[in-house]
């Protein structure tokens, strides 16, 4: 009897030991780690690219921001302050004898490139930084190459990089280009070369607080904590970014507790309702994303300025603004958004320059008749599945119907819309974007170096370059304002509004910083972010 009992106990012990041994094989990331995993739902159905120099959708910017660092960074939660990141300090400009200007970045030596499927982890050096910046400045490998036109990147030693600028720039223009946004993200050379451009677009390798772990198409991307992060190990075990385009599905996921943070609906009524219910917290914060019209001046119909003027006179800024309502949205009176970055026009300034156009359907119809389109014409416009785009286009559709322009809307996935509008599908493109300076807005959208994002085909190359080179801050702002006036006078673009970010979180999510403005268009997760009990 005793012998039998001993045998049974031994048998059970063996089973238990075996289960203990194989248990981790079936465990998830969070099961191996006591730290919580934050589940974030973005409002797109899928990712487009994880290459930080090509990423343009919010869903991609979110992932990229956690994986990569810049030489500098926007202070977490407050984009008005730029501080050192991979650099040890914010550089000062030096005027060179040949008329150029140089900025020298001293690099920290404790930043480590994450391991990839093809490379081991290794310390980041000036080679990586120069390689990354050169890639940013190359239009074949970067969507923001125009921002770095003429820049030279020189390795001084393993921990020092010098940037030579052909014409002197002020800090307001120069520094944001090297912060953690767009071309400023530093990628790891060895991983990029080993994985190739396509591989890197699916397996991003940087130095950030979170490391890429996996991507499931149209479902999610998983990041895990980078415990070797130079600012210390993250408090979160990881972040899972889920792709949920449907607003209601995201809301329900949050209510059920399955999701921790969601991209909310950018509408004042929505924010009010969530905060009144009190179960979750809706945060409204900057940076405001400008919403503006780009009118393709080379289009069959829109090449006539009368038609473009008619279109702008058919539009009611108040209608577009009312879709979101204050405090989520505010009106803007130039392409460079009023109240977001210097160089924009206030309403008074736009009125003084006679470019503050108000809706005037009667006059718009007269212009259409004068242009020979009394019976109107038809346009097919591509829009995103995202509510922020779709609603703006639907209002535009109704406005244009009043002047005889029959708009057929084709709703496609967000990433597909970005592809198609860059291929020139839309005669009128509504674009929603934040850029860190007036120079970036103007360069990317109104110069030939903007390339595929010059949706209007209206080019102000020389004028934008001259404004960029202006070292007197006040004169530079005036130059940018003048360019805004020129765009409006030529009816190549029309500013509608800016919308702040709306994110909803569980009350126990602590971002680790205040939410004033985040250029990466999500709350910003880093080593300080956590979920409390």
């Amino acid at each position: 009897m005793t012998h039998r009992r001993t045998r049974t106990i031994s048998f059970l012990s063996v089973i238990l030991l075996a289960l203990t041994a194989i248990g981790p094989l079936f465990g998830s990331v969070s099961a191996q780690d006591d730290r919580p995993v934050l589940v974030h739902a973005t409002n797109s159905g899928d990712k487009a690219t994880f290459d930080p120099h090509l990423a343009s959708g919010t869903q991609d910017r979110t992932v990229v921001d956690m994986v990569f660092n810049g030489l500098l960074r926007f202070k977490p939660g407050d984009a008005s302050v730029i501080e050192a990141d991979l650099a040890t300090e914010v550089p000062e400009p030096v005027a060179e004898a040949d008329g150029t200007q140089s900025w020298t970045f001293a690099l920290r030596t404790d930043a480590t490139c994450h391991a990839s499927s093809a490379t081991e982890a290794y310390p980041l050096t000036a080679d990586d930084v120069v390689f990354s910046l050169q890639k940013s400045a190359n239009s074949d490998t970067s969507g923001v190459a125009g921002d770095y036109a003429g820049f030279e990147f020189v390795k001084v030693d393993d921990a020092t990089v010098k940037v030579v600028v052909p014409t002197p720039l002020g800090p307001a223009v120069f520094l944001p280009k090297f912060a953690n946004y767009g071309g400023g993200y530093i990628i790891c050379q060895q991983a990029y070369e080993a994985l190739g451009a396509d591989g890197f677009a699916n397996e991003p390798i940087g130095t950030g607080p979170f490391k890429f772990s996996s991507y499931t198409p149209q479902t999610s991307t998983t990041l895990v904590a980078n415990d070797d992060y130079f600012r210390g190990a993250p408090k979160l075990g990881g972040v899972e970014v889920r792709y949920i385009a449907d607003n209601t599905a995201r809301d329900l996921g949050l209510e059920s507790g399955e999701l921790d943070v969601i991209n909310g609906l950018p509408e004042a009524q929505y924010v009010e309702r969530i905060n009144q219910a009190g179960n979750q917290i809706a945060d409204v914060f900057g940076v405001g994303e400008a919403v503006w019209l780009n009118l393709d001046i080379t289009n069959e119909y829109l090449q006539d300025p009368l038609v473009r003027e008619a279109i702008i006179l058919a539009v009611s800024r108040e209608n577009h603004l009312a879709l979101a309502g204050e405090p989520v949205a505010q009106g803007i009176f130039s392409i460079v958004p009023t109240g977001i970055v210097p160089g924009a026009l206030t309403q008074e300034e736009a009125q003084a320059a006679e470019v503050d156009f108000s809706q005037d359907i009667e006059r718009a119809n007269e212009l259409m008749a004068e242009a020979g389109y009394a019976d109107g014409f038809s346009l097919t416009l591509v829009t995103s599945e995202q509510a922020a785009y779709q609603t703006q286009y639907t209002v535009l559709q109704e406005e244009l119907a009043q002047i005889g322009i029959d708009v057929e809307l084709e709703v496609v996935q967000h990433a597909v819309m970005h592809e198609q509008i860059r291929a020139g599908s839309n005669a009128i493109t509504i674009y929603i974007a934040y850029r860190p300076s007036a120079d970036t807005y103007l360069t990317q959208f109104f110069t030939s170096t903007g390339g595929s994002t010059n949706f209007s085909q209206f080019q102000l190359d020389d004028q934008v370059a001259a404004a960029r080179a202006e070292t007197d801050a006040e004169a530079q702002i005036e130059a940018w304002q003048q360019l805004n006036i020129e765009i409006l006078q030529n009816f190549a673009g029309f500013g509608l509004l800016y919308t702040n970010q709306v994110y909803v979180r569980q009350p126990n999510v602590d971002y680790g910083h205040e939410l004033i403005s985040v250029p990466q268009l999500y709350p910003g997760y880093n080593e300080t972010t956590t979920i409390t009990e």
Partner: protein
Amino acid sequence: MTATPSVTMAPTAPIAVISERRRAWRAFARNRSAVVGLMLVILIILVAVFAPVLAPHNPLTQSVPNRLEGPSRDYLLGRDAYGRDVLSRIIYGTRIALQVGIFSVLLGGFAGTAIGVVAGYFGGKTEAVLMRLVDVLLAFPDLIMGLLVMAVLGPGLGKLILAIAFTMIPRFARIAYGQTLVLKEREFVEASHALGQRTGVILYRHIAPNIAGELVVLASLWTASAIRLEASLSFIGLGVPPPTPTWGQMIREGTVYLSSLPLLSLAPGVALLLTVFAFNLVGDGLRDVLDPRSGK
């Protein structure tokens, strides 16, 4: 004198000749559910026809500053996310629902019946090819099939009707095929053959009319299915492009505000429910009357 017995003929009672059609109508009229369904269908058709008169506002006119207003005296079902009148949009949405429901069934019915009759009558290789094709089409769920066809054709009312008609073809073909197999063995068809009638005449004059009853019953039921499928495709954004009001699209747009203004989704949902219900009641009633196998 012998009286001749007079033969008094009893007055002949008029023989009640009740036509088959009248009998069917009487049977239908006795079915209360069917009558309710028919009245609802008539009402829905009237709403669609007189939409411009009945709708209190233009269904396309936006008033964005007044968006998401709840029900009021002027806007009985409130305003949607663009400030458009929900009631007017539902009324106009009836037109799309009926157009798609009726025309897609008619189109699919004609094509499917033709395929089924030809396959059943000729047999052999014709039958093998046509019916295997139908089997392949039947293997796809309606929504998937509609989705595939819409993805190829692109958005638009005509294309939507075509897409849904495409999903109806195999259903009609299967029924017509089975019926034709039975009918082609019947004496009257053989007699027509013997009399030297042309195949086309036999199919058109003798086969088609004899399978029409069952097909009409099914058509009325499948009209409801077609309306549901239209709403489903519109819900996933593959229906008639905006701003044309469709119930499926209205339900989808309303889901964003489900917790704050449920009426935006509920109201078109009820319209859809009532329409599908009405066509189903009529279909059930017709089946009871026309289909001898229904057991009633």
